[in-house]
């Protein structure tokens, strides 16, 4: 018992240290160089040179916070979906849930912007949630017929393609100056976050995460399969509903603000579980949040600095680091089941 506790502590300390380092690194990197003293002044004392102050407070900090919160939400959402489908390669992106959210958000935005109405963060989340639930509903229907997980993932990917195609189509033919932003967003990016966005996403995501954390007991039971979970006293119907709603809210919020971000939802929970050497939800859920934050901060750092001033889409970077993890998992799973 002692040894495992040491492992858990170590894992959490590693993640926290990585998060701290990346936070600092992210604040410090960009087109304008800032010294440690300057950053300290700007953040803690709220003073400093005007341009630098604005860069930190209006551009870098919201972006960093968005990466932390959304990255964390995305990996927790992935963990929930993996538990729900009992398969490690389930995730909001591969199951087409992010793309469904993306489609509805684009439609909403084009419609509202076309009428000259400003789009509120809450509206975006609501739109994304509707889209996520539509994809989720479809996946659930398929999962009733198809028991094989690989088929389900293929269906999810197909849904993703259909939604992306429709989104691209709509975006291409919508000629409005705001559509430029929309295009950026539809590829996935943490840029252009306002403090209002951060406020809304924190409220929604942290509420959802708190609920998820308090569900760690039944989630743990559900990892043993439905039959045993029921026997342990879990109300399966309510539990499944809660799991679907919470994972959809989390991935919808991410999509609403940052567009679809690939592979984080699969890669991070896997890496976190390997680090902890356990799948106990009470540990994995907070660790997933930290891990997702670290992963997205790291990827965002690369996205905006490697080819600066050109910015990469966040999804391309997460795919580069996340997809190999997923391939590795699938290969290992296959070789073990043979």
């Amino acid at each position, binding site marked *: 018992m002692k040894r495992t506790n040491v492992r858990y502590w170590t894992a959490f300390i590693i993640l926290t240290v990585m998060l701290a380092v990346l936070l600092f690194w992210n604040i410090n990197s960009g087109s304008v160089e800032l010294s440690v003293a300057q950053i300290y002044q700007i953040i803690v004392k709220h003073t400093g040179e005007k341009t630098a102050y604005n860069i930190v407070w209006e551009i870098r900090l919201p972006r960093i916070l968005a990466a932390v919160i959304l990255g964390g939400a995305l990996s927790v959402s992935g963990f929930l979906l993996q538990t729900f489908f009992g398969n490690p390669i389930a995730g909001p992106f591969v199951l087409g849930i992010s793309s469904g959210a993306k489609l509805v958000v684009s439609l909403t935005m084009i419609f509202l912007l076309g009428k000259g109405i400003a789009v509120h963060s809450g509206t975006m989340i609501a739109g994304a949630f509707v889209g996520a639930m539509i994809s989720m509903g479809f996946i659930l229907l398929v999962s009733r017929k198809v028991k094989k997980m690989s088929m389900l993932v293929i269906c999810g990917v197909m849904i993703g393609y259909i939604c992306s195609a429709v989104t691209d189509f709509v975006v291409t033919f919508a000629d409005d100056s705001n559509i430029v932003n929309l295009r950026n967003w539809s590829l996935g990016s943490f840029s252009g976050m306002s403090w209002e966005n951060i406020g809304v996403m924190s409220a929604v995501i942290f509420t959802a995460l708190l609920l998820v954390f308090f569900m760690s007991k039944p989630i743990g039971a559900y990892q*043993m399969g439905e039959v*045993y979970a029921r*026997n*342990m*006293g879990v109300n399966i119907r309510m539990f499944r509903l809660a799991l679907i709603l919470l994972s959809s809210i989390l991935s919808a919020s991410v999509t609403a603000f940052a567009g679809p971000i690939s592979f984080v939802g699969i890669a991070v929970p896997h890496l976190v579980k390997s680090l902890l050497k*356990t799948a106990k939800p009470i540990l994995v859920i907070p660790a997933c949040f930290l891990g997702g934050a670290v992963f997205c901060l790291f990827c965002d750092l690369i996205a905006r600095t490697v080819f600066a001033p050109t910015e990469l889409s966040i999804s391309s970077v997460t795919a580069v680091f996340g997809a190999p993890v997923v391939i590795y998992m699938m290969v290992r799973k296959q070789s073990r089941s043979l």
Partner: protein
Amino acid sequence: MKDYFVYTEKMSVGYNGKPLIKDIEIELQKGQILTLIGPNGAGKSTILKSMIGQLSLLGGTVYIGRDELKKMSEKDLAKKMSVVMTERIHPELMTCGDVVSTGRYPYTGRLGILSEKDREKVREAMEMVNATELMERDFSAVSDGQRQRILLARAICQEPEIIVLDEPTSFLDIRYKLELLTILKKMVREKNVAVIMSLHELDLAQKISDVVVCVHGDKIERFGPPEEIFSAGYIRQLYGITDGSYNAQFGCIEMEGAKGEPEVFVIGGGGSGISVYRQLQRKGIPFAAGILHENDVDYPVAKALAVEVISEKPYEEIRPETYEKALNVMRKCKKVIGCTEKFGKMNEKNRHLLEESEHLL
């Protein structure tokens, strides 16, 4: 109120609203083991799944203690009943100890953190199934026998009053089968729990059960203590046995013997004939056996395998007419095998038969 701990009233079970088995009336007291037997696909698992609330009932009621199953909350039910089902589970990165401790779920707090008392119960349960050394082992890496014991320990540490097991002995070798059933018997005796399970092994069902339920067709065909259920004729009918036979006293099966005119005459008795009968059966040679007393151990096997058995009433000396009959059969055979060299007052005539056979060849 009835005196039973678990009972059903006119329970109907099935899938998608279509009843598979109707009017099920099962009654069981605490400290008893009830076993469901019946052919594959008869619906044993369906009955069990309905009794644990995994499938909704299509009619009737299940009572546990004094409560109706449908009206019990998930948590109350979890404290009364635990299960070991056939579904293979693949929990990720869980040690056997972790799996067992999931049995404490109904007793832990909001976040499911185990108290010292819970850990103690987990240890006790693992001791009960002789699996203490597996505590830290990865659950996905243990053998079938170990996995089944761990799942039983999980069920035990849930501190249930009734344990439901669906074919707990499938995939286990003989040692683990016996071990598992011994643990169940111990549970029943020490903790006074009720056990409901399904078994394929009739011999084990006959020996461990207090009550046997036979599922056949769309109903419970028989219900009662094993002594009433296990007759050769009924088992034959229940399972629709066409090749081979079932020995009710020993609960063992025999293959179908070779048919046709007997080619070999086997003189056995006192257990000496059995291995010869089996050899002949394996080689497909039709044979006759004699002269066996009806209370001889050789008799049931000979009866199952031989084309003809010449027998004498229990405890009687072999009568001349029986001897004549045996002689006639023996004369038609090409070969005679004498298995026994022990002759006494009762089977004196077998010695004559053996001597006679030497003249024949």
